[in-house]
């Protein structure tokens, strides 16, 4: 009975939402020709400009790399403060956890739009936005793995009278290092995609060219940029997932 009411509630919610947002498959079928035209305009891709904008691909990669680094750098101490296995002050744990949850609610594109407003339309704004974004993800993942650490493994350090800092240096840091590096790589993969997209709101990198070509209606150039981007992303994903596997296996 209870289950039926729940299902009925969700069906009603869904139908109401469909009604409010004017879901109509007629418009989708009618619009199919337009989408088809749009996509056919993208082919064949025009690769003539890819070499010209290649420095911007490098910029996008650099943005992703540097912001992962900054994010990780900030995330490490915060994750230590948020994990209740390492920091025994309940207040600090709760405070930083709430803070991290708030940080993660803000979507990357929104952060980028805000940073562009604050720092101007350049890669620097993108780096700040992505650093903040990576910081949120890495610290969340890291404090969760810190909490899954076996507390008994820290006992020897406590037994010889080690301080809080030596507990971190000899007990925790070596234990979570592989996981930490693997999270950083994972976030780097996310950041490359994000760095390309946030250019659409002016945060530099290859997204700027996507935006320009959209405005000019040069769809075949867009497809060439996207294909190159996919190639880069796929290569890095492949390498990074290989490294991650080795890190977590050993």
């Amino acid at each position: 009975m209870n289950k039926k009411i729940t299902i009925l509630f969700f069906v009603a919610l869904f139908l109401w939402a469909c009604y409010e947002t004017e879901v109509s498959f007629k418009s989708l079928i009618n619009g199919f020709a337009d989408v088809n035209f749009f996509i056919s305009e993208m082919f064949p891709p025009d690769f003539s400009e890819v070499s010209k904008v290649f420095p911007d691909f490098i910029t996008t990669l650099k943005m992703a790399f540097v912001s992962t680094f900054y994010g990780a750098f900030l995330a490490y101490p915060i994750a230590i403060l948020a994990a209740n296995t390492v920091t025994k002050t309940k207040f600090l744990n709760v405070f930083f956890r709430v803070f991290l949850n708030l940080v993660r609610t803000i979507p990357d594109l929104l952060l980028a739009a805000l940073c562009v407003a604050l720092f101007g339309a350049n890669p620097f704004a993108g780096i700040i936005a992505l650093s903040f974004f990576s910081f949120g993800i890495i610290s969340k993942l890291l404090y969760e793995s810190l909490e899954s650490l076996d507390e008994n493994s820290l006992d020897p350090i406590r037994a010889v009278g080690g301080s809080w800092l030596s507990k971190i240096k000899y007990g925790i840091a070596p234990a979570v290092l592989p996981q930490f590096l693997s999270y950083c790589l994972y976030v780097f993969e996310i950041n490359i995609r994000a760095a390309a997209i946030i250019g659409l709101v002016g945060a530099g990198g290859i997204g700027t060219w996507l935006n320009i070509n959209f405005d000019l209606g040069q769809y075949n150039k867009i497809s060439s940029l996207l294909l190159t981007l996919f190639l880069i992303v796929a290569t890095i994903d492949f390498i990074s997932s290989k490294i991650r596997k080795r890190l977590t296996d050993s």
Partner: protein
Amino acid sequence: MNNKKIFLLLFIFILIGLTTNEYLPETNNKGQEIFTKILSGENGLFNPDFSIYQNVAKGLLESFQIALIGTVFAGFFSLILGILAAENTSPKPVSGFIKFTLNAIRTIPEILLAIIFIVGVGPGAFAGILALGFHSTGTLSKLTAEVTESINKGPIEAVLAVGGSQISVFRYSALPQIMPEFVSILLYRFEINIRAASVLGMVGAGGIGKTLFFALMARNWSHVGTILIGIIIVVTLVDYISGRIRSNLV
């Protein structure tokens, strides 16, 4: 990894970080002035203007609806595609082909899909729904296929042993095993989609992003502040509720 290697890595990272110096905006007093004006000025981010709460609430509701419908559509298709893509429930060529297609779908960012669908059905919530639905189908189907591949064979053999047909095998042994995990994945995707739905409006796909876009364009920081608070509240609520349901499920 010993200390020497770590320091070497850090050194290289910092060097790469230094090469992004060229992106640093010029520092002058005017920049600082703008900065403080945007953040804490009379019309700044930290002085949210709550008089537009009706607009913000409407936008947030629309974003919620976009995420809901998009996730439900994706859930419907991914249950079918996921089972077709699983190696233990469908023939090898079919599963291989569907897996490949899903991988291709997943590489297209939501924002780009939104732009494509706007061409088809015009700007508005429906374009956002289609974009989220399409992208989520890619990710959800992959996860559903993984869940399907990990199901226990015992119940399937039990149904077959009492003379059940293929359909009753699916209905009474496979589906009950897949369902709890599937709902959990679906809720997790909903959490991601609510974030995505709040920025899709920036390219014209409806929801709070539209309101945000206009506020950003008009450099109306107090409105941006209000919208930001609204997004943070909604995302936090959704995360909390969905987290509770998920921990009950598994």
